[in-house]
C-alpha cells in the first residue's frame, strides 16, 4: 500500500495550459505539504495545509492554487503554465500531534515539463 501517492507521475504540457496534480495519503496524517524541486535538485516548500486549512504559502505565484477537499487529499492546480514551472513537485504529509519531530512522508513526485 502506497503511503503518499501522486498522480500523474509525469506531466508534459504546453505553455499557457492549466493542469492539476493530485495527492493522497493513507497514513491518517492531518498536515500535508507541497514542495518544488527545481532542475538543480533544490527543494523548497510551497504550501502546507493542516486539517484542510492553509497554514503556509511561501511567496508562490497566484497561478498556483492548492485545494484540500479533506484531510487525506491535497491537490495542486496551476493556471497559465510557464516554462519556469518545469520541476518535480513532491507532496508530503505528517502528523501534527507530537510536534515537528514527526517524520514527513514524501510521495514519489510529479515531473512537470512545460514546453
Amino acid at each position, binding site marked *: 500500500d502506497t503511503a503518499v501517492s501522486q498522480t500523474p507521475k509525469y506531466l508534459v504540457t504546453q505553455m499557457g495550459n492549466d493542469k492539476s496534480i493530485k495527492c493522497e495519503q493513507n497514513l491518517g496524517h492531518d498536515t500535508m505539504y507541497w514542495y518544488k524541486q527545481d532542475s538543480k535538485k533544490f527543494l523548497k*516548500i510551497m504550501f*502546507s495545509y493542516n486539517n484542510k486549512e492553509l497554514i503556509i504559502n511561501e511567496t508562490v505565484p497566484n497561478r498556483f492554487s492548492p485545494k484540500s477537499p479533506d484531510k487525506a487529499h491535497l491537490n495542486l492546480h496551476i493556471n497559465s503554465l510557464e516554462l519556469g514551472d518545469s520541476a518535480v513537485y513532491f507532496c508530503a504529509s505528517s502528523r501534527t500531534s507530537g510536534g515537528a*519531530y514527526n517524520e514527513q512522508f*514524501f*510521495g514519489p*513526485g510529479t515531473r512537470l515539463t512545460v514546453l
Partner: protein
Amino acid sequence: AQSVTQLDSQVPVFEEAPVELRCNYSSSVSVYLFWYVQYPNQGLQLLLKYLSGSTLVKGINGFEAEFNKSQTSFHLRKPSVHISDTAEYFCAVRTPLGGNTPLVFGKGTRLSVIA
C-alpha cells in the same frame, strides 16, 4: 529564518570506502535536524533525525550522523558504502514550533559509489 548549507554538491567514492557528507545550518532558534535520501526517480526517504540527547545518531542502511552544536554541523557518515548507496542526500532542518512546520532543505549532495 533557517538555512542549510551542504558543502559538497558531488561526492564520488569507491565501493567499501568510508564517506562523509557535510552539512552546516544556521538558525536563530533551536532546530530539529534530518537527513533524507532520494534514489533516482523516487521520492525522499528519511535516513535519520536528531532532536536532543546523544550527539551521535544512527539511521537506516548503516548511516550515522553527528551533531556538533559549536560548529552548527550535522555531518552524515557511513564506514563502508555500497553501489546501492548512490543517490542524492539532503540535509534539512525544522523549527520545533509545531507539528506543521515545513522542512528547510540544503541543496543536496550527489553521492556516486564507484565499483
